[in-house]
């Protein structure tokens, strides 16, 4: 029996540590630990709720924009604000393009190197690579000359003996099974995907000033002024044309590169439809409204819960059944660590009890993570693209059913094959395809509204804090690329009194609960084959299939924050703000 530790888990956002027990070449148990804590919700207390989104967005720079959206929704929910149709469309375009871009970056830049041996690309025959490329896609960059050029770049990199980001890879690991030509194809698309993500996300630059960390949300709408007759309006006919061009190029890439690559890579690793199964419980809040956020029936991503791998029933979701445990997390509850608490009760007291660094192993029988353990109806849940796809599939969504069945037919596999490491990868690609086809609809609706003179982008009825009740509370739910995201806010006397977020990677990467039930990563790792405990590449495959995001997952805080190291900086009076700058 061997204890195999991966820390840091790289090619993710944030600081994740995985400890596993390996027996007879298989993982027999696993523990997932988040090793960084900031405390953003506590820092939010006492701030203007209208700017909460600017702070909350910094929970994560990879899932940029998603926390901003959940935050404005929470405050709008608390204050009873409906946003204008144009603002809702802009939010859908931003969230939809984030979904597509994030999935592409995940597959090529965060996940592909678990399956693709870059050095094997050197042994590929460029002519055969060209044949392979042309057999799976009509993507124009597929000539022998093109692949020869890519191969020459790899050769030069290897010859220079300065492999840069690739220097510490597991090249030559027996778990790599792609033929040389597929490796070369994937390396070419790794580079092309860098271009794609850079180009496509300009849609965020127009609608948010920049990416990452967009700056155009408002409680009540968006700052993206829309006017068909004003060249200086953020959204005008010229910009609509740009959005359509960017969306069209993204669609081509997803359908002609991403999807064919996922199918091709998966065809060499079919046994991974049998690994990484996990919990079998799936949850989605649903998102991308066709009208009001308060009408889930109109969501493009449907809402619901699937239990025990049973695709015959989609249970309705009740947000009141969400709670969190800290039994194995570095926090304590006033009611005892065996109990769970609902997010609206929002109690979290950080209390580190792990080993003093530097350390070799965590005490996984005790507390071992900065993540809490969220549960739905006391059950652990998997969230993310697989959960959304399964819930849409089981709900009978025709387009999803057709796409999913097409992929399953390609592998001659039943729907249950989706409960797996490869299932998550396939679901992510399927979802990107669905969303990239939907983007032009939202752009067209925006264009149509503009053409009809609808310039409403912000509902200012409640902008003035004097119009607010003395106290109120609300929550904002959302589907981020990595899964279900919720923000909860309490407002007292025009200020934030309490703020809580439960994010996708807390659901997936969280530790055990009071009943000893594993979190989604921990459950999915059981039975993973390990060829070489010194190089546990296979563990990485399943963990990466969830697309971990740890900065998101750890940020909870308590009712009594402890100032440290520096005097509390009070929000300065207006006059002193300017004077203070003299200290530059």
């Amino acid at each position, binding site marked *: 029996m061997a204890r195999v530790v991966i*820390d840091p888990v790289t090619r993710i956002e944030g600081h994740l540590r995985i400890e596993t027990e390996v027996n007879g070449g298989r993982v027999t148990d696993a523990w997932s630990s988040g090793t960084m804590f900031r405390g953003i919700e506590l820092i939010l207390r006492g701030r203007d709720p209208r700017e909460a989104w600017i702070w909350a967005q910094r929970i994560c720079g990879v899932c940029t924009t998603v926390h901003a959206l959940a935050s404005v929704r929470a405050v709008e929910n608390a204050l009873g604000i409906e946003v204008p149709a144009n603002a809702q469309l802009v939010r859908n375009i931003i969230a939809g393009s984030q979904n597509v871009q994030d999935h592409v970056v995940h597959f090529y830049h965060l996940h592909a190197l678990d399956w693709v041996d870059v050095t094997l690309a050197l042994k590929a025959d460029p002519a055969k690579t060209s044949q392979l490329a042309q057999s799976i896609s009509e993507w124009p960059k597929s000539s022998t000359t093109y692949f020869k050029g890519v191969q020459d770049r790899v050769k030069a990199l290897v010859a220079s003996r*300065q492999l840069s980001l690739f220097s510490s890879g597991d090249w030559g690991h027996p778990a790599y099974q792609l033929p040389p030509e597929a490796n070369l194809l994937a390396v070419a698309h790794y580079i092309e995907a860098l271009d794609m993500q850079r180009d496509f996300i300009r849609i*965020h630059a127009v609608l*948010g000033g920049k990416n990452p960390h967009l700056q155009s949300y408002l409680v009540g709408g968006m700052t993206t002024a829309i006017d068909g007759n004003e060249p200086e309006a953020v959204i005008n006919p010229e910009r609509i044309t740009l959005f359509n061009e960017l969306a069209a190029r993204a669609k081509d890439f997803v359908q002609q590169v991403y999807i064919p690559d996922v199918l091709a890579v998966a065809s060499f690793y079919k046994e991974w439809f049998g690994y990484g199964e996990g919990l079998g419980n799936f949850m989605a809040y649903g998102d991308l409204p066709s009208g009001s956020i308060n009408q889930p029936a109109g969501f493009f991503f449907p809402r619901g819960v699937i239990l025990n791998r049973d695709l015959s029933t989609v249970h309705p979701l009740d947000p009141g059944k969400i709670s969190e445990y800290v039994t194995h997390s570095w926090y304590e509850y006033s009611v005892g660590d065996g109990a769970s608490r609902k997010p609206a009760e929002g109690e979290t007291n950080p209390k*580190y009890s792990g080993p003093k660094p530097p350390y070799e192993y965590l005490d996984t029988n005790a507390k071992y993570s900065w993540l809490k353990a969220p549960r739905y109806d006391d059950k652990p849940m998997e969230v993310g693209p697989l959960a959304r796809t399964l819930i849409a599939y089981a709900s009978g969504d025709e387009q999803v059913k057709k796409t999913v069945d097409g992929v399953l037919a390609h592998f001659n596999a039943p729907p249950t094959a989706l409960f797996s490491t490869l299932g998550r990868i396939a679901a992510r690609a399927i979802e990107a395809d669905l969303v990239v086809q939907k983007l032009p609809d939202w752009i067209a609706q925006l264009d149509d509204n503009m053409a009809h003179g609808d310039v409403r982008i912000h509902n200012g009825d409640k902008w003035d804090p004097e119009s607010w009740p003395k106290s109120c509370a609300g929550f904002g739910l959302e589907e981020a690329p990595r899964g279900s995201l919720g923000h909860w806010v309490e407002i007292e006397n025009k200020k934030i009194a309490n703020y809580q977020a439960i994010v996708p990677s807390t659901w997936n990467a969280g530790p055990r609960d009071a009943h000893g039930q594993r979190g989604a990563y921990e459950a999915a790792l059981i039975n993973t084959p390990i060829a070489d405990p010194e190089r546990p590449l296979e563990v990485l495959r399943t963990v990466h299939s969830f697309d971990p995001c740890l900065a998101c997952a750890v940020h909870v*805080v308590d009712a009594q924050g402890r100032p440290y190291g520096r005097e509390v900086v009070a929000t*300065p009076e207006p006059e002193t703000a300017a004077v203070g700058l003299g200290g530059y």
Partner: protein
Amino acid sequence: MARQETVLNDCMRRGVSRRRFMEFCGTMAATLALPEAYTQTIAAALGQKRKPTLVWLEFQDCAGNSESMLRSTHPTVEEVVLETLSWEYHETIMAGYGKHAEAALQRVVKEEKGKYLVVVEGSIPLAEEGIYCTIGGRSAIEIAREVCRNAAATIAIGSCAWDGGLPSAGINPTGAVGVQEAVPGLKLVNLPGCPHNATNTAAVLVHYLTFGELPAMDGDNRPLFAYGQLIHDQCERRAHYDAGRFVQTWGDEGHRKGYCLFKMGCKGPEATYNCPTVRWNGGTSWPVKSGHGCIGCASSRFWDTKSPFYERLPHPAGFGVDVTAGEIGWTVVAGVAAATAAHAVGHVVRDHFSPKNGDSTAHEEEAVTAASAEVK
């Protein structure tokens, strides 16, 4: 011993044309506000060196700065990561993981001591002996001390690595600080912003590789080329401000006509950064262009000093709006100028390497020699 590989040769062998390479050098010269003649100088310096090693550390971060690097267009991340530098460690995008990743970092620290560059992203928590951020079982502060102290220079990117940023705002629950406070005495440049603008970061790297010196900096170790000018003075909406045309409510006619956002809380009049000129995502836009005020994200302790973000900047009683913003601006610029005089790094570099007519070859050799001494 690895063969000595020049960056230019390496680029050309990888299918990057000499023209593209010169464009890259030209972009860098422009960002650094150097005369055009420096394009050749930069090209000469980059063309003659083995690629220097860079390691990128992430502590209490959101990876927003890493993502910003991935979105960089001029230069692209490929140009920086694969063709200009050898990027040996960067958790978000590196192939290696676990102990092999940590071994790669240790190799650089030991074998390239005093020669490599280190980028730091995210703040460093000092409370309770560093337990709020560990990597490979080691605390962030322990890693930062070891890796930064053995580096040729440290580049703190993003506001968190500069002054603690968001984790240090308000009550600062984890005792988060920036690199300069966590590990004093380093040769350091700060590139704040939330996130950093990758074009500026690339320009600092190229300046260092070309001249063997960090660029001219202000008293906060921020390069003047990027942080020396008020947003307000570079803003495309400035004419509206001068003419008294303001957005009054979100989405109103003025908002749709691109009027000034001063009354909606814009901090441009008291914030310095080259955001309006360098812009983001291939020069596509910047926050004010998307209709929202500046939040001063490259300013000192901005989360505490610039919030509330929707509150209009103050002005002394008896003065109009116009005078007020000017006054605020003068305070900032005067501060920058005073700090610069005290830290006149810039002039040394500039005077030393200023190209003279008919003297360019000697000058280039001088620059390269100086740079090689630092980085080789």
